């Protein structure tokens, strides 16, 4: 344990209002901490630069799931376990439910939050490709009120987001229109549990009359930010999923991503596997293709 608790302040205001007021008083001075599964690891390693922390763990305003007719609103303070256990999330948003089950082990799923995963903004985060595929909206909150913005626009660079210094993510809104889409998601890690992903994919597709009506393909760990493969989606749209198209899709996907060599894996491996996963998604989407 390489940090001294005496060097840190941690307060736990009772309401979201109190938290955003604090953030407005001293923007950038207070680091919000929810479940702590990212922050406390840095802290123990002696690498936490913030010395003032404000707990947003278990704030009722952040930890609930609202099911509306057209969308689901997931409080940013919901844990992965909350997601895994929610009937609608399981049934209508399998990309997200699966990602929640892949993050850490049970103990970390009981504490890690969706909001934390978003704000930490690691390109390897498990739930972010799912949110890109579903085209979630984020509701951000500050003393200035709420604003809603498309999650697609949220990441601006490696670990950079549009979150203002005095803002929190309040909720994640996902439209309830994917029940009849084909869902495909896989995480490739160094082992079957408790692994940071080397590549992960969350994809949705729908065919109409044998051609691709819509394909949404999102990948993690292949760029500084989680990525939607806009170009790959464009070239398959409106076409039949035949072998030449799949080969082209694989090639296009490989060209769209920017994977790196790092301590976990290599650029070449990530590139090849990303291409394989895209191809596998499209194969399974095809009529008569294997579904599992």
């Amino acid at each position, binding site marked *: 344990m390489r940090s*001294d608790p005496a060097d840190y302040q941690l307060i736990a205001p009772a309401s979201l209002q109190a938290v955003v007021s604090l953030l407005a008083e001293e923007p950038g001075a207070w680091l919000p901490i929810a479940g702590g599964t990212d922050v406390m690891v840095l802290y123990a390693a002696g690498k936490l630069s913030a010395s003032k922390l404000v707990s947003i763990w278990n704030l009722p305003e952040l930890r609930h799931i609202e099911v509306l007719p057209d969308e689901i609103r997931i409080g940013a303070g919901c844990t992965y376990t909350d997601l895994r256990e929610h009937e609608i999330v399981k049934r209508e948003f399998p990309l997200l439910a699966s990602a929640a089950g892949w993050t850490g082990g049970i103990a970390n799923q009981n504490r890690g939050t969706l909001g934390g995963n978003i704000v930490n903004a690691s390109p390897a985060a498990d739930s972010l490709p799912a949110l890109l595929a579903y085209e979630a909206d984020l509701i951000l909150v500050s003393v200035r009120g709420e604003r809603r913005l498309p999650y697609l626009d949220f990441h601006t660079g490696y670990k950079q987001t549009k979150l203002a210094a005095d803002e929190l993510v309040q909720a994640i809104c996902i439209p309830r229109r994917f029940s009849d889409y084909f869902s495909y998601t896989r995480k490739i890690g160094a082992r079957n549990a408790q692994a940071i992903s080397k590549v992960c994919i969350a994809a949705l597709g729908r065919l109409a009359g044998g051609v691709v009506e819509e394909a949404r393909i999102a990948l993690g760990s292949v760029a500084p930010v989680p990525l939607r493969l806009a170009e790959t989606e464009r070239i398959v749209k409106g076409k039949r999923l035949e072998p030449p198209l799949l080969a082209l899709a694989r090639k296009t996907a490989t060209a769209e991503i920017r994977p790196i060599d790092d301590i976990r894996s290599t650029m070449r491996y990530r590139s090849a596997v990303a291409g394989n996963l895209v191809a596998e998604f499209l194969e399974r989407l095809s009529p008569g293709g294997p579904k599992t």
Partner: protein
Amino acid sequence: MTNDRIIGSSVPRKEGRDKVTGRAQYVDDMTLPHMLYGATVRSQIPRGRIRNITFGPEIPWDEFVIVSAKDIPGKNVVALIVDDQPCLADAVVNHPEEPILLLAHPDPHILPKAVAAITIEYDPLPAIFTIEESERSSEVIWGTDNTFKRYLVEKGNVDGIWEKADYVVEGEYRTGAQEQLYIENNGMIAAFDPLQGITVWGSLQCPYYVHKALMALCNLPADKVRVVQMETGGAFGGKEEYPSMIAAHAALLAIKSGRPVKIIYDRMEDMAATTKRHPSRTRHRTAVTKDGKILGGEVEFAVDGGAYATLSSVVLSRATIHAGGAYFWPNVRIRAKAVATNAPPHGAFRGFGAPQSLFALERHMDRIAQVVGLSPVEIRRRNFLKPEQTTTTEQTVREPIDLDQLLNHALELSDYHAKTDRFAKQNQVGGIRKGMGIAAFLHGAGFTGSGERYLSSLVGVEGCADGSVRVLVSSTEFGQGTKTVLCQIAAESLGLPYEDVGIAQADTNVVPNSGPTVASRTVMVVGKLVQSAALGIRQTLTQGGTLGESYSPEEFRSACQNHVATHGEFRSWARYEAPSDVFWDDEKYRGEAYAAFAWAVYIAEVTVDLTTCSASVDDFVALQEVGKVLHPVLARGQIAGGVAQGIGYTLYEKVVWQNGRMQNGQMTNYIMPTSADLPTIRVFFEEMGNIHGAFGAKGIGELPMDGPAPAIVNAVEDALKVRFDSIPLLPEDIFEALAADSERETEPQPAGGGR
């Protein structure tokens, strides 16, 4: 008392209740009054001269105890074999993380800041990091040629076989470093008293190794050094020699401060600074007939020992002796060496050299099979050692081992033939490839050659006031079941209930030196001495007239109580005596290397997913002949645990090095298998007995480490028809090999040697 009432049954683990209730006391659970916490300032460079040390002004240094090499009362050495390893670097550092200074303070939280506030300037020297760089000797970092030790084993006439060979098969095989990754990090508490001397409590395997090291370091006589083993949370060899270093550090701080000092490593420090399995390189060149019989061969084996000699010569010894495996070599030359690099010294890890040389051999056997055109099964059948044949060191196999039958049994248990047929068909289509792989091997138990004679282990059994009996050994429990099995042996020997036998905490003030808890020797060698010493207790009572020739447990209890009341607590001792027919030549490295070999055939079934290039083990059969199973649950647990570590060694665990320093020293980046990654490991035993072991047992602790790597890689090659000669074998490696192979497919096949 020969019927197996206790031996052979799964009695409760002696210290089990404490472990499942959280009462077991590990070193970090203990505090002493006025205790300080210690930390280590370590080298950030692989090699160089220390030019200057600056203490930053922001830290209240007067509150700290600071120790350097100059504070060492005795010799600045961690005494082991060669005595080349300093306890604290003085003028020169030879590896990253080498300890230079020690700090102690009442508040553990200030220590990381203090360590960070010390700036050390170096004049760097050129450093070397691989076996190849070391053997080139363009930079000599140790001795005259960077070589800690060499061995040469010669049998028959190797030079004469090549012209008779139908095939000459060559191969080079490599294994990487592996971190022991005991879940409890290294830790020690030391206290010093001018009258009593130094006492240390810690997580350790070998109390008397630490005892010897502290005597030399602190310049204290034997009765002024006391070493006490606490409950130890895993060791696997990683706490064989390293504890002497951390004990030395805690002791120095305790001596200088006059207060107890606790040093507990965190995971990052433990991974980066302490020992790992030796990386290895093996080159085989084998002469084979067209019938697949080995005429002989040359084996060149090398391990990377890191910066200091530590135990490399002994690891090398075991690797050398196991290099020929379970086969008959009529002629062989084995040249082995341990070389120095500027990495933290590598050390003991379960298997201790044998996993390295056996990986190479068992991969090579599959290579030979391919060249000759035989199956992996058949090539082994044609070369297995048989009773009355000799090993590579010319040790005669004196027991009726039938490896052919053992192989048959394993093939049956794993459904090998049906599966290989099925997989061959299934692999034609789809994105999954499956394969089966075999490893057949042996593992010698106990110290090599004259080692046990040199150890001269001493064991005691004590009659206690309450009529119970207590085992006195320095052999330690760290999960493998030492306490349980040694109590079983004593109880069985005396015809007493298991509950009437206890075992003393391993405290050098209380227990004799029964040798280190290593080399799979505890049950076999120490257990046999426990048996003798226990019988000695009985003899004292029967000769004293208080006990008849046959007796009930109650009668024993009474007699013992009476004897203690009259004469005080009494003990019986047993000292190791080498069997008279065991002969070992240390010069020629020839003779009876081990008192007993356990034999095994392991078979792995793997799946490779071509989408991700990741290999996983779906089924694993571990079949071994072990003399006698003294405790079924413990024995199965040992094999399953060892196989799990072997699977990690093969497919998951990679040490990422940069300039001699481990870069991935966190559990998030050094990947060991979770419960979601391992197959059901199916464990089976055969029992042939063993005259040299307690109740016929052979040592089995390390055996399971030898088989998984070659069995799995053989299976991956079977699945993919692509060659892999080094571990760890990660998906990235499989990917690169498949990519290269598909490029090669368009080129003509190279002639000769086969694939």
